[in-house]
């Protein structure tokens, strides 16, 4: 408990007995949970840090794991790369119990990593980090022309999109035709 809190509670005349008790109460040991990504590397994260993630926080409250159970069953996030999960865990640890600053300069600058991070953060429902990431993504294209944006974000043009769609349809049609032919052959 902080010194200011102690001062306030000791000054309160209504509950003179509770204040010294609470001041003397031993700190509750922090509980830890375990998560792993695609690479199966297990990361140990405190419950305080995990509060940033609405998804994990919900899982913890619903499952009611003890520390031993949590150690034995780390939360699996098979859709998140190991290095990306490491970034997320680091961010959660850094901002544990702190008010989030208006800007975060430690986010990756490479678009591939940033997009992966955005997807992971969106999945884990970490609202503040998602806001930072989206801001960072938006900053990538500041001052750029539509052609440059297309290049940076690898956005296909409408014509390319149409061509890809046509090709996919054609391929699907061919596959379907192949399957029906094979089925007819089997029937014979």
């Amino acid at each position, binding site marked *: 408990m902080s010194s200011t809190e102690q001062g306030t509670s000791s000054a309160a005349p209504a509950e003179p007995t509770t204040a010294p008790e609470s001041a003397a109460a031993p700190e509750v040991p922090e509980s830890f949970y375990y998560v792993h990504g695609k690479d199966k590397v297990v990361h140990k994260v405190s419950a305080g840090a995990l509060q940033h993630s609405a998804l994990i926080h919900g899982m913890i409250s619903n499952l009611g794991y003890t520390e031993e159970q949590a150690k034995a069953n780390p939360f699996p996030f098979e859709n998140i790369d190991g290095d990306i999960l490491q970034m997320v865990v680091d961010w959660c640890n850094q901002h544990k119990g702190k008010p989030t600053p208006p800007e975060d300069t430690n986010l990756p600058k490479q678009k591939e990593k940033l997009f992966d991070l*955005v997807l992971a953060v*969106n999945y884990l429902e970490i609202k503040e980090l998602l806001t930072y990431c*989206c801001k960072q993504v*938006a*900053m990538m294209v500041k*001052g750029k022309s539509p052609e440059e*944006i297309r290049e940076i974000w690898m956005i296909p*043009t409408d014509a390319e999109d149409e061509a890809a769609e046509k090709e996919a349809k054609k391929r699907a049609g061919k596959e379907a035709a192949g399957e029906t032919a094979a089925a007819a052959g089997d029937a014979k």
Partner: protein
Amino acid sequence: MVNWSQLPPEIKRHVAKKLDFMSRHAMKSTSHSDRLIVNSTSFELPRVRFGYKGDRCLIVIYTGVEKFLRLEMIKEAHGITVLRSENSWDPKAISSKQLPPTSDLFKLGLLFLKSLLAEKLILIKIIEFEIDKNEKIFKNRISGIMGGAKFRINEIAANTVNVEFVEEFMNFLTIRKDLKILRNFDFHAFEENLGFQLVAEVSTMHGGESRLRYYKSMFYMNTVTPNTQNLSNDLLRNLVRDDENEGMKLAAAHILSPHIDEILPTVREENYSAIREHTKCGYSNFWMESKNEKALEKYTNLPCSLGNYCKDCGDPFEYWYYQNLPRRILHEPFWTDFISFYENGKTENVLRSKFRADENRKKQHLKNQKNPKNSKNSWGFGQISVEKLMEKMGNFNGKNTKNKKKKSRKLAEKVPEILEDSEDFQNSEDVEMSPEDSEVLENPDDVENAPEDLFSEDSELQTAPEDNLDDVKDSEISEDVRNSENSKILIFLLFPILGAFIFYWIFIEFFAF
């Protein structure tokens, strides 16, 4: 590897919300799905200015305090000169572009505005008009140009000369349910201060809250004395009494940081109720007809009575905007119709030099800052790097040699009058207009594509930024290109002559031998 196309639409929308105004506009042109994404995210602009006077058309889009995008189109005999700048009045940071001539500059300007801002989810908090009072034909033309599209605007502001005129055509421009306020404002310029010190304001409300509210705001730059208070109080009383405008009127005089000794006691009058509020921020005096005095109650015991005219409690943008409005005397002397009164004949010049000195002081202060903010320019408003400029000059040169037989017209560049007091404006390079380019505006159907062309950098050459292009001016680069052209011609001409001469000499020597 994840790319943009694989992101879910809600994330894309989240990103689109964080984009600055021009990036948002650029993103709309990347693909159809991204256009849909952008069009489904809301965007708010604190203020937009649209001006049309003589042969000039002005669009200024404010995105925050000291953040704006400015486009001024000047009609000249050989075409339209477009001056573009972002967040700066430094003449060296102004880039220019030439567009082919058009007979209707107003139409061009309004189409730019329409293409940039006429969207369902773009909300303009205030739009300000400054239009030539002699132009009377707008009403019919505007509806034609807008083609049914409308802007979402909360407030329309115009100077006293323009306000009635604006009222005639505003319904063709705005969605009525969004429009809440019509403001008529003017400035009284005095030499003592750089910003306003007193605002006398009257608001008139007709019927329910949904009806349009009329404001008349008069800004005074003089230091408040008992004499000016008497004047403003008289003015307010007259405005409340004004029988021409029916409705419930509330008059208010707001004085910023007054000396208590200078404040006069409120003069009471029969049939009128008045309350005075003196807070740490300033002093306000509210007037109303006694029959409406219940409405006055909400103005009592306010923590701050100055509203948006308070530096600490009001909207920072509104405060910044109105405090800096008289600086147009220095930056945009052509667009100062809102100043209805000058203290004397010299006031304009005195204020201009005061503003210049203040701007220099600010610039020096920024230079002395250890970590000056180095933000990128928006699309279409950026400064060009030396390498890119050279590359463009290379393409430009190549294009010219290929299209030598094509008819092209050279557009001379003028130092625009807007920068008449800034002698150091760097002229942009003359732009060779190819026939393809000139088709852009000659065909009226294509005029809506003009904004894209305006912001594109393919055919443009911008002025060099102060820092990295001081010694590589456009004209010098152009000179270099011309020199290299000449040297090529010399080589092509001289080489056969020299060759022939050598062969001739060998031939003579051979026979002599």
